[in-house]
Every structure is written in structure tokens, then in C-alpha cells.
């Protein structure tokens, strides 16, 4: 059941430069300490596409989190960490 595009944040180890970021045109990058956080609206198949890209580029995936705006606050454990 794909509920349609939802906002995700994806945390990757290290700073992604312009070359790496060009692999994720649909996502907005932000630096956060030694990590890069990518944010954007993704449906399930786009999410898996992004995850495959992260794998293909040998990046170190730290966290994937889904934001559910319908709820007042995301309950604990809602973040999907691998």
C-alpha cells in the first residue's frame, strides 16, 4: 500500500560534495556535523531508488526517517532506521 509521497530525511555519513549530490536531484541536502542530511518528498519506489543509489555509491547510510504530518507529533519508534 503506497500512501503517496511522504517527507523523508535520510542521514549519510560524511559531507557529500557536488558530484555525489548530483545523484540525488530530488532531495535537499543539509550538513549536520560530520553527516549529510537529505530531505524530500518521496513515494516508496523513489525511496528505494534513493537507497539503491546510496548503496551503489558506497555511501554509509546512518538513518532513514519518515515524517507523518497528519499526526501531531511522531510517536517514538516511527523513524525507520535500517
Amino acid at each position, binding site marked *: 500500500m503506497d500512501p503517496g509521497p511522504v517527507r523523508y530525511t535520510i542521514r549519510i555519513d*560524511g559531507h557529500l560534495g557536488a558530484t555525489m549530490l548530483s545523484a540525488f536531484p530530488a532531495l535537499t541536502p543539509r550538513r549536520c556535523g560530520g553527516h549529510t542530511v537529505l530531505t524530500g518528498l518521496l513515494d516508496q519506489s523513489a525511496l528505494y531508488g534513493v537507497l539503491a543509489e546510496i548503496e551503489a555509491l558506497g555511501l554509509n547510510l546512518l538513518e532513514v526517517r519518515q515524517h507523518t504530518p497528519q499526526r501531531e507529533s511522531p510517536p517514538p519508534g516511527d523513524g525507520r532506521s535500517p
Partner: protein
Amino acid sequence: MQGGPVTVAPATLRLIDRGDLLAALDRAAARKVTIISAPAGSGKTSLIRAWTDRPGGPHQLAVVPVQRDQHDTQLFWLALLDAVRRATGAAGDAEPAAATPEFNARAMVDRVLSELGDARGDLTLVIEDLHELASPGALAQLTRLLTNLPPGVHAVVSTRHDLRLRLHRLRLAGELSEIRASELRFCERETRELLDAAGIALSEAGAAVLHQRTEGWAAGLRLAVLSLAGHPDPERFVAEFSGSERTVAEYLLAEMLDRQRGDVQRLLLRTCLLDRVNGELADLLTGRPGSERILLDLEDANAFVVSLDPERTWFRYHHLFADLLRLELRRRRPKEVPELHRRAAGWFIEHGQVVDAIQHTQAAADWPGAARLLADHSFSLTLGGQEQTMQSLVRAFPPGADHPELALVRAMGDLSQGHLDEAAAHLAVAENYAETAPPDCRRRLRVAIAALKLRLARRRGHLAGVIEQVKFLDSPLTGQSDEDITLGSDLRAVALLNLGTAKAWSGLPDAERHLREGAVLAREICRPYLEVHCLAQLGFASKVRPFATTRRRCLEAIALADRHGWGAEPVIAPALISLSGALVFTGEFDEAERWLQRTEQALQTDTGPDIRLLLHMVGGMLHACRGRHQHALEEFSAAEQLRSQLEGPPATASQVAGWLVATQARLGRPGEARALLAALDDERAGSGEIRNACAVICLAEGDPAGALGAARDVLDGTVPVIGYVTVAEAELLVGLAHRELGDQRAASQAAERALALAEPDRLVLPFAMTGSRELLETLPRHETAHAALRTEILDIIHGSPATERDRSSPPPVEELSPGELRVLRYLPTNLARVEIASELSVSRNTVSTHIRSIYAKLGVRDRSSAVRRARSLRLLSAGRTR
């Protein structure tokens, strides 16, 4: 950009010997299956290379790298089979495995397992990059392979992530081992050794920092070494690297690229879009000569370039490296990307590599061009067995975009799976488009469409449609290029195949000539798939011949298919089912059942009504002969149902209907039988087969006089019959009716006439199907000239060859087994043992074993006395011709 060397001298940059890791793999590989599961760039491939190349490594080795994004599971399996055959040295004995339009993965796994089982000594099967295999079905079949490996065979599988292989059983049995990323990571000592081996002077502290920053990640270390080689200040390099927060791969790739000479950079960036590259193609893309030398140097420097062939003409980049380079290219020169794809496509099409050309045209986002290329080459791609690849190319088009050319390709996929209505719908779209297409490609489109319509008409049994398309295709093609000439021969062979098949289906005599010509032509133009197809249909077309001829032709076709690895695929199904049918006619039911099962296996991917009709018909014959009327009814009903999906009924249509009706009657339901009769069209209702069915109904209704009347129509020739089988059946029904009427003498005479008809070709089926056991049993031995056949038929009906033996003749010391009896029947012929073996499709050894055993049991020493003794024991009929 610096003017440094292309790379460092090859000798200084060898893979270091990671002894601990090799020992770990040694331990792991002692189990049946080893999975190396670790992310990109972890050094999986290098580990496997080092392990297999080292002295004392596995001596029989089959390596299968899964191609990038492999959707075509058939190509994967063929590569695997070829690798195994090369490893076992079996490759010399057989034709190389080739692709077919239809493909049965299950049968392929059986084949691979059987090749592995034939391996002498230990064999290691290595499957690299399994994560690229984009098919759940293929993983399921692979699971079956991995869990059933023969003794002495080990598998090593590398993948970037854990896959859905269901290997619990192996795990529980302690036969599964895993090597994961943590074990692949370089330790500090190994990092040091790697630097030393490359001749890089770096302080102890610098090496430690480099190790820490890369976390021992193999690709990172290799990139670092490439950058550090010849670097004026390695310490500064490491310090800057560790001060950066950039990801390891990106930082080091940029550094490494910048350290390369301009022409090397240019080559890397401009050829990274290709899955494989050679010097000529690289020259074309870079616009400069000398690329081959650079590629060779890069491989020697272990710089993420690997040659694909022993001659080192084709190369590929390490996947991670290529992905990074592609990003770099897109960022630095985005406008060049489509042009590079276009140039590559042009080169590939010039060199006949159509699939690569289409993929690059798609990558250049030239969708109309890609659709045109695909449609243009769809005919030869199908004949070359690239069906699955074509369908995955179709799926690569953006959804929603309407390319009418693609309807043609979709129709082909439908036809291969027997989805005839869908195929017709797609063909209609393709035809509409062809009329509006530019003139230069209209002709080719029309040809492709005609070839498909031909195939569709044939599969529907629509002879007139077949002839119409053949006439169209027969008109000479306008062009004179080589391609047109090849297309001409291909088309002619395809036309002969379809015409012959359609004529055979309709029972026309020149079917065999067309098919034989088609097979010869296919052989001449090196289209083995077409040749096997023609021969398989020739087996089917032989059904009016003596059964021995049908059997021989079918076995020949099956042998050729087996040599190509198509022995369990739809293409050979007509021969498999015809062989099974011939065996039912001659009463060899167990053997028939075996071939019937093999036909079912071969038809897994083909649900076409034409071939399935034959499958159900033979299944019904077999059940009916064994007295399992309920099962027979189901099979005949299924066959009859499929007939309604065909435009042209097969020549045997009235036979199926007749047996269906008769089976209802034998099940004690004459009412239902009569209802079926009433629903038949006039043509079939007036056939001899249906008159026989009427006789069966009358007998079931207790009206033997009515039965006599119906069967006599067949015997006096007032109704058309398919063949003498119908006449023999009518004689038996007459005999049964006379028995009911109490006229034993007339019954015996009818039985004797049926035996006389059956004798030349050793026909058994009608006796078994009509339940004529008592009729034969009450036929006095001295009143028949066919005593041996009578005994043989009774033995078959009883299901045991020994029970009806004449008690007055001296019994043999020991009863012959069914296998021995089968061989015995060939002893009166001139056939040598090896020929008997091929007739029975068993090995020569089996035949020799049986013959030894026959001699022993009959108490004889040679073939001629065995025949004499067998005759006197009535194990052989008197003067049968085979």
C-alpha cells in the same frame, strides 16, 4: 592537472597477499555455499580473484559475473551453464548453449545440476555481483541450485546486500558460511603492506591516519594508493584528506582523477557510460587514438579496470568506480552525455550489437529512435533468442509515452507465451502504425508484421491465414543489402516452418516437404533454433506414417534439441507429444507417460491452445487405454474446449470429439453422450470417428443392433475416416455387438479382422480403449493368424506381460522385465545395439545389460536363438515388421 605518468608501473601495484582473509575464505569454502555479502568497494571481487588465482586454488573453477542490471534471466543461466561446461571440459562435446525465444528456468537448473554432477573431482562455482540479478524468479531457481549441489561442488556467491535466497536448510546443516564487510576491511598492518607494495613512502603515523580515515575500506585505499603513487608530498595528501569531511569515495576519486594525465582523464570520463569498452570504441568517444594502450595500463595498475577476455580487447570498469565517474561526467560536462550515448549507439549498431545500441539510444533519451530500432530488429532478435531482453527493453521506455512501434514487440512476447488474443490486439495497433510509417521503414515493418501474423495464424490452426501471409512474404524484398538477404533467408525458413506446421495441423500431405526444406535451410543459415523447430513439427507431421517412423523422427528432433539445451522447452513440445502419442498407440503406456510428463514440463511457459490441445488429447488416450475413464473424460473435455479457441480445427478434431462422446457412454452416461453428439457440427457428425462413438453409445444403452448399424457405416466406407485406426476400432465394436447378440462366430471374425489391421504396425490402442479383452480371450488360438499379437495385446491390457502366457509352452526360467521385453522386440530386426538404444532412448549399456539378462533367462547364447526361443514362448509376434 599534472603531467604525471599514466599510472605507476604495473609491477609495483599488485594486490597484496591478504593471507588471513584467504585463509578465512578457505575455511568458509569447505562448506557447500559461501556468501560474501558486503557493500560496494569492499574488495569482494579482488578477494575472489586472489583466492582463485593462488597456487593450490580450486582446479575446476566456473566463474559467472552477473551483468549490470541483468533482467534477462535466460542470459544469466546460459552464462552459468557455459562457465560450468568450460570448467568440466564438457564444452567440447556439445554445441554452445544458445538462447531461445521461450525459456524454462527450471529445466535449465536441472541441466546445470546434471553437468555439475558429471564433474570429476571438486569444482567451485563462483557467482559474482548477484545483487544485479533483477528477477525474483531467478533467485528462487538459484536457491534450488544452491541447495542441491552435488557432492564435491562448492559455490561462492558475492553480493552487495543480503538476498532473498532461502538457504535455511543449508544453514541448519552447517553447510552455509558467510563473509561480511567487517572481515573484508583492511587492518592497519594490511594498509601498511599495501602502501609498501605500491612503493609509497609514508610515515607510520601517516599510514595509521589513512587507515583510520578510510576505515579499511578497500576501494578507498585503492583510490588513495593511485593518488599517492608518485605524489610529491604523501604526508600532506594524507593530512588534507583526513582534515576533510567529504565522503571517502568522492574525495579520493577527485584526487585520483586530478592526478591523471589529460588524455587518461578524458578517456575515463567519456567511456564510463559504457558497460564494456574496447580501444576502437574508446577512440571514437574520446575523438583520439591510443585508447587501448591506456586501458591496458589502467588494468595493469589495478586501477578499477578489468579486462573481459583473455586477449584483453574488451574492458569494464569496477561498478562503484563507473558510477562515481558517471556522476563526475554529468556534473562537469552534462551537455556531452546524450552525444556520447548517441555515438556509442552508432558504433554498436554498425557492429551488429543491436541490444547495446538500443540501450544507448534510450539513454540518450531518443525514445522514438529507440522504439524504431527495436521494432526494426525485433524479428532477428526473436530468432536469436533474445525475447526476454526485448521485453525488458520495452519496459525501459517511460510510461505513458506512446510508441506504436512497440506494439509489434509486445505482440511477440504474447505469442511466445501463447496469449493469442492479446497478440492479435497488439498486432492490430502495429498494423495501423505501419501504414503511417515513413516509407523507408514501412516495408520492414510490414515484413515483421506479416511474420507475426503468420505465427499467430499457425497457432490458431488457420491455414488460409498462413498461406496468405506466406504469399506476402514470398515476394522478393526490394533491398539488396546483406541484411536484406539474411532477412530473406530467415523469412523463408520461418515461412516454411509455419506453412508446414499449418498443413500438418490440417492433415495435408506436403507438410512434411515444407518442414524438411525448412530444416535444411535453417541449418544452412545457422539458425539452430529454427532447425529444431522444423524437426519437432516434422515429428508431429509424421503421424500418418508407421509409428516406428514417427518415433524415429521425434527422437532425432529431441536429440538435436537436447544437444542445444532445448530438450525441455516449448520448441520441442510437438515432437515430445507426438512421440508420447505414438507410444500410446502401440501400447507402451509407461514409456508414453514418461514423455507426456516431459511435454508438460516443456510447456510451462507456453499456454497456447494448439499445443495444449495435443497434450490433453494424448493424456486422454493414455487414461482411456488404462481404463481410467473419468480422467480420460477430463482430458478429452479440456482438448475439446481448446479446440473452440482455434480458428482451424486440427485434422484429428473428429477423433477427439468421438473419444469424448464414447468416454461419456463408457462411464454409463449415454444421455450426456447423446447431448454432446447433438451439439456437433455436420462435418464432424458425419465422420467415421463419430459413427464409432454412436456404436459405443448403443452398446451402453443395450442396443447391440444399433451399434452394428453405426459401425458398419465405417466399415463399408460410406463415411470418411482419419485412418485405419478408426476402421480397426469399428471392427472391434462390431465384434462386441455380436458378442452381446450371442453370435460368437461373427464376433471372432470381427476380432480377427481387427488383429489383421493392427498387425503391420503393432497397433494396440483400440483394443485397450474399447475394452476388447474378453473378445480377444474368447478368440480361439487356432482360429487366429495373429496369436502372438493377440497374446501381446492381452498382456498389455492386463498390465502385466507375464500373466497371459500360454501354460502349455515351457516357461522360461525367470520372467522378463518390461525393459527386457522392450529390448527383446528389437532382436528380430537388423538394428545394432546402439541403434536399439537410440530407438528406446536409453543408453547402449542399458541395452547390453538387458540383452545379457534376456540370454540368461531364456537360456540361450546368441541373438538368433534368443529370437527362436522368444517366438516359441510367444514373447514375440510371428512376422511383425517394425
